[in-house]
């Protein structure tokens, strides 16, 4: 290991940004905040992508590691302690200066700070908290900050970071317990899920105290609400009642020092001590074992105690982690099926109230022979399908079991998950555009969230026909097989039949709307059958 402690700022930046690039969380969204007079920075609820890197990904934050020294030896990571790479660290001042100056030139929306584990999780987390405190209080930065929680850090430090950051995340790394044990033996499920649970509880309480300013809800939450289903992050999921008079702590008077301080120490530590089941083996029972086991330990949290110790915070107006939390899973390093990954995703949204789950296609940087799946090419297509399915969960009201199942655990290579579902459920189609509900319209391939909203609104002024749909941005090339306008399909020859539609959708060239004919076939043409020479 080579230590470069006195490297120039440019070298440090080069090393520590290259080391951070495999963390794919890229959004700068979720929080809308006006600037404070005399101070630099504001935040936008919709994302702002300041640039796009050569791999096509959005660049919106200064994504760096505090240090790439690490005592862990995770097999997939380029910074693992057994690798021989130059190691260096930033100082908190350097991080603050870089953030401020880049922000002033409109290169970034804010800071994304992760880190390798230097000496111990608590030691590292303390350095991170110190940088964030400096950035917010000394340099007076009011832009977006995304902070990673180090697995195994103590709850006090996780909470401290949460008051300074807009978003926090802890990487799940692998979808199953077995995978994590195999590839990252230093990280345990318990160390990862405990801070997640803490942040979730803290956010719920912050919302109870500050209203929506204390934190936004996730898109999954809004979709579940719209569908009339039980909401994630609600009482049943958390095991404590937020917002009742009992545990509402007024911001200016945080109760007696002892009580609220006890809140963190007793509740979270009790939970950790009482929790013996988080390490249970789970291979396929992901929903049931892992996630529910943390749920069960919530019984340690009584409804009266708070999880937030506000006594050491002077300014809580930003709320606790207002932009929510996210996580990341590596795809393709271990042998889980798409169905397993998607089930874990759904459980995370439901039980931990996450904003986003990110998928990172496994890039084989270490060429470690003990890695189970050692292919060469990162599974980009699979990652793409997973993101498509993730969108279906968060915006379209699908459940993971509708998209995939135990008997069909992998995605269709040729068709996106929504088309695939539609073709497997032709009994729901065709859908009449002028009368269908919003949720039904969302199920039609070719109609997305925006188009469905426009259709519902435009219907109030008059009937719609196919021409109008085209103007509204509906992808008619896909949708024509599934919809009727005023009772008629767009072309009389369209067959509402699975094989015909599949052939048309899968082949790139057929565009019935552009007039490529009504009888598309791919069988070998023969003189006698197709040209009817036999009849002569």
């Amino acid at each position, binding site marked *: 290991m080579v230590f470069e402690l006195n490297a120039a*700022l*440019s070298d440090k*930046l*080069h090393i520590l*940004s*290259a080391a*951070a*690039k*495999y963390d794919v969380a890229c959004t700068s969204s979720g929080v809308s905040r*006006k*600037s404070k*007079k*005399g*101070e*630099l*920075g*504001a935040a936008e609820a919709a994302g*702002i*992508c*300041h*640039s*796009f*890197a*050569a*791999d*096509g*990904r*959005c*660049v919106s934050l*200064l*994504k760096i590691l505090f240090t790439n020294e690490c005592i862990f030896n995770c097999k997939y990571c380029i910074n693992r302690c057994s690798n021989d790479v130059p190691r260096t660290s930033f100082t908190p001042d350097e991080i603050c200066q*870089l953030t401020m*100056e*880049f922000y*002033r*030139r*409109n*290169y970034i929306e804010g800071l994304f700070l992760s880190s390798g584990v230097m000496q111990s999780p608590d030691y590292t987390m303390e350095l991170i908290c110190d940088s964030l405190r400096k950035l917010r209080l000394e340099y007076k930065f009011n*832009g977006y900050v995304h902070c990673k929680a180090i697995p195994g850090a103590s709850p006090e430090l996780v909470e401290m970071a949460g008051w300074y950051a807009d978003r926090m995340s802890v990487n799940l790394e692998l979808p199953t317990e077995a995978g994590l044990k195999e590839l990252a033996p230093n990280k345990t499920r318990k160390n990862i899920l405990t801070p997640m649970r803490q942040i979730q509880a803290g956010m719920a309480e912050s919302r109870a105290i500050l209203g929506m300013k204390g934190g936004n809800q996730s898109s999954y939450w809004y979709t579940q609400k719209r569908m009339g289903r039980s909401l994630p992050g609600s009482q049943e999921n958390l095991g404590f009642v937020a917002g009742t008079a009992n545990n509402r702590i007024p911001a200016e008077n945080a109760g007696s020092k002892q009580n609220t301080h006890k809140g963190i120490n007793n509740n979270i530590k009790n939970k950790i001590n009482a929790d013996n089941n988080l390490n249970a083996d789970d291979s396929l029972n992901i929903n049931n074992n892992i996630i529910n086991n943390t749920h069960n330990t919530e019984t340690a949290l009584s409804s009266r105690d708070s999880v937030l110790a506000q006594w050491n915070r002077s300014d809580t107006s930003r709320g606790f982690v207002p932009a929510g939390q996210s996580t990341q899973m590596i795809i393709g390093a271990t042998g889980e099926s798409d169905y397993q990954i998607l089930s874990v995703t759904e459980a995370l949204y439901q039980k931990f109230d996450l904003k986003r789950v990110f998928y990172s*296609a496994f*890039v084989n940087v270490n060429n470690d022979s003990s890695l189970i799946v050692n292919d060469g*090419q*990162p599974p*980009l297509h699979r990652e793409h399908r997973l993101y498509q399915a993730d969108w279906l969960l968060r915006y379209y009201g699908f459940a993971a079991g509708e998209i995939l199942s135990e008997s069909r655990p992998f995605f269709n290579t040729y068709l996106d998950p929504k088309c695939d579902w539609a073709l497997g459920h032709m009994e729901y189609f065709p859908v009449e555009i002028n009368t269908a509900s919003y949720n039904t319209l969302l199920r039609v391939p070719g109609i997305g969230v925006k188009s469905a909203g*426009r259709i519902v*609104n*435009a219907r*109030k*002024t*008059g009937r*719609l*026909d196919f*021409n*109008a749909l085209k*103007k*509204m941005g509906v992808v008619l090339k896909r949708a024509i097989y599934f919809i009727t306008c005023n009772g008629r399909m767009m072309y009389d020859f369209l067959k509402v039949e699975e094989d015909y539609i599949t052939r048309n959708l899968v082949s790139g060239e057929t565009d019935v709307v552009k007039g490529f004919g009504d009888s598309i076939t791919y069988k070998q043409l023969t003189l006698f059958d197709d040209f009817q020479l036999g009849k002569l």
Partner: protein
Amino acid sequence: MDKPVRIYQCENSPDGILSAVFEAGISGYGHNYIKIQPLDQDSIYNIELFSEYIKVETSAKKAGNVLETIESRISHEAVFFVMSALLSEDGDRGNVIYQFVTYGFTIGQGITKALQLECVARIFEIKRKVHNEAHFYKEFIRFQEVKKVPSVLMAKIEPKNRVLTLVTAHFEDRFNAEYFIIYDKSHKEASFHSADGGCIIRILTEDEEKKLDSLLDVNEKYADLWKIFFNSIAVEERKNYKLQRGNLALHYRKYMTEFMENN
């Protein structure tokens, strides 16, 4: 027999176009026979046969009147649509605004959602183009510190539509304590913001343009650091220039630090 089409010619400015809408509106000639043509001094226009040409004087009072009427008889959102269309450089915007407003007086509030109507779809498209371009420039605009004491930031953009006000408003908030200049090269305008919060926009003379251009010729430590960062963060195995070009069109890269060779 069909009536001859009336073409109202006006100045190529928001007030001019709204004045033409006013004149056309009160004439009661019939919206199917009215066209509005904003005139640019430099361009050459074809004269149509069998059409009447009427020159409209620009009047701020008439323009204000039109906006007030839209606000009261249709909705605030409709005013927003019309204002956004006025920021665009689309030659057809006069016609589209006129048709939109006429239909709006009949239909009322719901007009802004009635995308099945031709004129509404068109004005929606124009508004979307303008705001998308403003959003892109908020993302891709790059400032440089052209002066150290006091610190002055300056940026240059070359938009197709008149998005300077939209972009400036965004930075007025987040850079509220900074001196900054945003120079719009295609429309020869610039906005100047002072650290105490005041902001002005003015049309530039040739000399002023040259001076601003010369200010941008600086070598910056943080610009170099940004280039280092930008080049480090791409994952080699996922390189995809086509995707990058789809997300970040080439013509936006002209004044972006990370894509510029020198500086």
